[in-house]
């Protein structure tokens, strides 16, 4: 069992959905990003996705693009992203960490060394946006063998014929992309998401996390009723961006604003008695 498997089992026993939070590694700088990462579980994040910055994130909207470029301009590299995970793990051995990004930085790392370093650092899962089932043979078996979950994306365009292939080698959870679009640009339609999630559930016993376009407490609450996890990404990244100064540098407000939003979103998933403290 990976930390991801344990977390979803734990959430199930609590009878609630989990909050999956996305931050871009190194945005707006390494130290601020690491401080936020360390504080996320305390603010109510159940699972943490760390974006591995890429210069050309073509499935992402303006907020996450800008966030990747801020991180890269501040000197973030793959090695530094893995080092954030390593530092986080010295204090937290239970919160799952999923690395999310695009294939090229992994490919040139290269793959075998990336998998070894990611596992050693304490990462639990991997989402590679531009590596569909047709191309993931060169990464997935190595990552799975090393004990990582490789999480695949299902989308509104994934039809019934294709769904089994998408689900066949995924583990940890299934990430359902709630809109046919780029991250954070449109509001997902709850009925259509429910229908798709139902179709996926009929084909797998894995937990499902829904993401792309989730911004408000109401949306978190609605998706929590149909899926095991709700992913919030662009909304957090936008909140971080708004807290920066005119030159894109962190301010006093950066960490508390981001964590405050996480706390508000996570509180709707928890019983009033166990509201988290920041």
């Amino acid at each position: 069992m990976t930390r991801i498997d344990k977390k979803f089992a734990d959430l199930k026993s609590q009878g609630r959905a989990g909050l999956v939070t996305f931050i871009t590694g190194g945005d707006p700088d390494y130290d601020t990003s690491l401080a936020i990462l360390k504080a996320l579980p305390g603010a109510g994040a159940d699972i943490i996705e760390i974006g591995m910055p890429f210069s050309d994130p073509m499935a992402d909207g303006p907020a996450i693009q800008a966030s990747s470029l801020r991180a890269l301009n501040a000197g973030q590299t793959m090695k530094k992203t893995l080092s954030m995970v390593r530092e986080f793990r010295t204090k937290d051995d239970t919160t799952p960490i999923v690395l999310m990004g695009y294939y090229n930085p992994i490919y040139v790392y290269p793959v075998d060394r990336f998998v070894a370093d990611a596992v050693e650092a304490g990462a639990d899962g991997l989402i590679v946006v531009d590596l569909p089932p047709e191309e993931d043979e060169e990464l997935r078996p190595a990552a799975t063998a090393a004990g990582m979950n490789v999480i695949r994306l299902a989308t509104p365009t994934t039809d019934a014929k294709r769904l089994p292939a998408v689900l066949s080698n995924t583990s940890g959870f299934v990430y359902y992309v709630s809109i046919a679009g780029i991250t954070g640009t449109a509001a997902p339609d709850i009925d259509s998401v429910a229908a798709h999630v139902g179709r996926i559930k009929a084909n797998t016993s894995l937990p499902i996390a829904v993401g792309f376009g989730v911004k408000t407490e109401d949306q978190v609450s609605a998706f929590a009723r149909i899926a095991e996890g709700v992913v919030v990404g662009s909304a957090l990244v936008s909140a971080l961006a708004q807290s920066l100064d005119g030159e894109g540098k962190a301010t006093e407000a950066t960490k508390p604003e981001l964590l405050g939003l996480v706390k508000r979103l996570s509180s709707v998933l928890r019983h009033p008695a166990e509201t988290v403290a920041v």
Partner: protein
Amino acid sequence: MSTVTDTPAQNTYRAGPDEQGHFGLYGGRFVAETLMPLILELEQAYADAQADPSFQAELDALLAHYAGRPSPLYFAERLTEHLGGAKIYFKRDELNHTGSHKINNCLGQIQLARRMGRTRIIAETGAGQHGVAVATVAARFGLPCVIYMGATDIERQRPNVFRMKLLGAEVKAVTSGSGTLKDAMNDALRDWIANVHDTFYIIGTVAGPHPYPAMVRNFQSVIGKETREQMMEREGRLPDTLVACIGGGSNAMGLFHDFLDDPSVTIYGVEAGGHGIDVENGHAASMTGGKPGVLHGNRTYLLQDDDGQILEGHSISAGLDYPGVGPEHSWLKDSGRVTYVSVTDKEALTAFQLCTKLEGIIPALEPSHALAYVTKLAPTLPSDNLLVMNMCGRGDKDIFAVAEHLHMEM
């Protein structure tokens, strides 16, 4: 990780790609899941169209009567005399409707879009030649069209931006990243992901996810097929040497593909060396100055740093200023069938002026790179060496940029 670079199993260089869209290590379908079903549908629709004789017949009629094919194979007599070596021919694809080879591919893809019932066209453009060709075919068939173009490129290719607007296209300025072709391609892909239900993406070069590299090559291979016939007619034999410029590589694949299995034909692809191949991030020569990676749906040679971040690259030519190259070129490079070289901005500008003065042809800055290599290569070859250079675009669009570089008053 695949590490084997295939040499062809059979004795042919023309069999690729395989069913998964791979040319050896290169190519493939590295796209987000949202696009994957669309790519598969496109592949099927293209296979159906290829099997339908009426598809090719309609395309042939459009190429003949709308685009003006076949383009002439012209003996560049004064350039040949001046250089004193190989007998130089130009394949005159700059005489096509819209002024470049791009129309060959656009007519093919818009026919496919119509077969698939798509009602909205999107495209990326660098120099604007592809954008103009897309806007043209969209106007011809009455489909709305959005062209993504980097803000930097909009500035240096104003005449083409105006042409696209006249043709009814919406030109969207892309300001993300470096505001050039790669960023325009990112935004076109984002548009496609968000509008999968009605939109057809006309990619302009032999890159992107399978089936685009093979499909665009096939639509462009008319260039090489005509060249073969015309040369047989003129000289009674095959050419000895082919030269074409490479950005993404569509005009080059179009010329080369028909000749890949003719061992007597020596083939050169000319990349944009910008300020020089040794200047970091100062050129756009992905094969002579980059390494394999994954971008825009395919694995290919890329300009990138040690962390796998894509570099912007530089070329005087907006059409060559792309950090990648079509995957089939990457495979042809590794297999040794094609020799890839680079020339600098300065050399291209000199060749631009030479051709204009000696032949009365104003070449685009893109084929000026091929010409610059011809000026080095031709004098080393015997006078019976038949050399064909693809004059893939005309230079009207570039006169403002050239005036600026040469410090000339217009």
